[in-house]
């Protein structure tokens, strides 16, 4: 199968849309966990096409969005140190911290470079022994193995000028927090397929058991998403709650063994604050004590280690937890646009606000619904 055509086949997509509509005897509320799924749903117009029978709530699975502003601020502070280069993924650069973004800091005097992989940061450290290369490590279980590999490689190369500012997060504890919230409206989940390629999906069985909600491990192409939605809807209609892998071409039950092993070697699970959310028990990864010499926070104690989030009119915390839709935020499209983002979800290519701004804007009318 050709991924970029067959999984986007309009005819197949329409057939699945019809099946979902026929199944529904009422309107159900489903959360797609990953920001990549949110963008694909909005881009293809699936959420709008199903709006009468399925409410899609956009989950917190945008790695850039959940990185606390204080972490960005700390990275900015480190980038101002002499002989220091802070590297991170390009998507991170425009996200506002408490006082501007990494890109703003670069325009002033911060030494910042976008990299495509943590291994690029290791190579930079190798090429430039005269400077400290710090990798701002963000992302879910999808990017954590590459960071772990970078630490292992730096150790193998005996680099003493490489370190990481670790802000990795784990998705399942956040799903538990949302599902156990008193305000929760979500009745079923589309689990993030990419995360599950690494972690597998065994550990979701306990979640399904505990919360009695259907979970479909779901991919990112339009027909993948529709298959996941159909699975969850079918279960809800039959009052069932099961764990189903709807993305078997990428996800295996046990995930990626080597990647999990490398992560286990380098990281411990820790409690972690997510942007817009409270501290999530087990919601993050930190370096194991034996790798502490690669921990930038320990290596370069920050004089002004900011832990407090600054409150603005931005309601991205509520967007990230699915409490409100991006368009319900009073700043959306007014003070907050991709040019002048107040919150991370308006910046990131996986952020829900950016998806609404980009794919909805103001031309959308009912006549545009697919036929």
């Amino acid at each position, binding site marked *: 199968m050709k991924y970029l055509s067959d999984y986007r086949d*309009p005819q197949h*997509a329409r057939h699945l849309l019809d099946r979902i509509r026929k199944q529904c005897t009422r309107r159900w509320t489903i959360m797609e966990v990953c920001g*990549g799924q949110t963008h694909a749903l909005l881009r293809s117009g699936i959420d709008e096409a199903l709006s009468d029978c399925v409410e899609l709530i956009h989950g917190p699975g945008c*790695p850039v969005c959940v990185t606390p502003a204080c972490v960005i601020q700390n990275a900015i502070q480190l980038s101002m140190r002499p002989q220091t280069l802070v590297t991170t993924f390009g998507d991170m650069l425009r996200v506002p911290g408490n006082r501007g973004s990494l890109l703003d800091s670069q325009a002033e005097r911060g030494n910042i470079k976008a990299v495509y992989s943590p291994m690029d940061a290791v190579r930079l450290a190798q090429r430039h022994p005269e400077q400290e290369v710090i990798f701002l490590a963000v992302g879910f279980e999808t990017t954590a193995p590459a960071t772990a590999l970078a630490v292992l490689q730096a150790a193998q190369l005996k680099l003493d000028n490489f370190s990481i500012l670790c802000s990795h997060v784990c998705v399942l504890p956040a799903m538990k927090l949302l599902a156990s919230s008193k305000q929760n409206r979500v009745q079923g989940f589309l689990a993030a397929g990419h995360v599950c390629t690494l972690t597998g999906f065994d550990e979701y069985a306990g979640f399904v058991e505990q919360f009695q909600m259907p979970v479909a491990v779901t991919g990112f192409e339009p027909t993948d998403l529709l298959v996941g939605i159909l699975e969850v809807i079918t279960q809800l209609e039959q009052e069932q709650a099961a764990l189903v892998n709807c993305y078997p071409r990428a996800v295996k039950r046990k995930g990626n063994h080597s990647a999990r092993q490398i992560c286990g070697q380098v990281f411990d699970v820790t409690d972690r604050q997510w942007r817009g959310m409270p501290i999530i028990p087990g919601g993050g990864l930190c370096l194991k004590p034996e790798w502490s010499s690669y921990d930038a926070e320990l290596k370069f104690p920050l004089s002004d280690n900011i832990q407090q989030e600054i409150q603005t009119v931005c309601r991205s915390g509520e967007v990230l937890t699915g409490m409100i839709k991006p368009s319900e935020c009073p700043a959306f499209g007014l003070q907050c646009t991709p040019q002048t983002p107040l919150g991370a979800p308006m910046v990131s290519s996986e952020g829900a606000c950016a998806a609404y701004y980009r794919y909805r804007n103001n031309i959308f009318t009912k006549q*545009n619904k*697919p036929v």
Partner: protein
Amino acid sequence: MTDSSWTGSCPLGVTSQNKIITLAHGEGGLLSRQLIGDVILPGLGEAALRSQDDAAVIDLPRNRLHFSTDSYVVTPMFFPGGDIGSLAINGTVNDLLVSGANPQWMTLSFIIEEGLPFEILTEILASVSRTAQQAGVKIATGDTKVVPRGAADGLYINTTGVGVPFDSPQPDPHNLHSCDQLIVTGPIGQHGIAILSAREELAFDPPPQSDCQSLQDPVHKLIQAGVTIRAMRDATRGGLAAILHEWAASSAKTLTIDEKNIPIARQTRSVCELLGLDPLFSACEGTMLVAVPKEEAEKTIQVLRESDISKEATIIGEVHPAKSAPVTIRRLLGIEQPIDEPLGSQFPRIC
């Protein structure tokens, strides 16, 4: 460009063991003369218009000329499908062509970082010469400056081109009418992806190729066929999305394109998917957008497909009376969505 007849050798000169350009080559003395006389003019070969003075003299065939300038600072200097030399010629040639003029003369100015190997300069000059001859333009005059190490990144080129207008109405996006058809001459986004892959050393195999090429042939074919060209632009920085927004603003119309009709090479699409980039925002360097009246669209496609450069020409959309969004795209399921105006460079997503 001053043509030097001085050909003797010098211990510090070009022919010595010193194989890199130094600040002294930009100081205006003997070494400067050697650089121009022994390296640049021979390197340009037939592409250079020989003149003896500080200014070139050209005979004007008309009392109206098109004039365009651009600076080229691309990193890396060599990339799959082209180099800074071919880009500097094709870029300015294409700007003149799409403005409705036949490019005739160009200036060529180098800003060279101290330490650039002569070997690289020679290779780029050969590329400039080859490209200029293919495009039928003469290098009328030029300049060379050498700046200290660190003050530039290897080599920058500025070209200014002069073109003679075609005997047909000038393309102008203010003229766009509702129902006009939007045509692209080939797969979009290739140059941007090729440069990104080369610059970041992304190990795609085969490496993505730039579409860096002159639009001379397709533009001449359109003019000869007498097609009514309402607007014509090469989709460089900001890609197709940027041109669509510019035209929408000029014409006060809404431009709508159909996702399923946009030609995108399989590799460009794959790289974009992998990195989370949108090919609509990725630069082209030899692919243009043409707007023609609806009744001439089929003929335009036929004419364009006669040229190797535009054999994949396709109708991708049309012009509508203004809606609330200036540029929209019909997605695969038939839903119409706005397209944003490009905002700086695209950043790859995390995962």
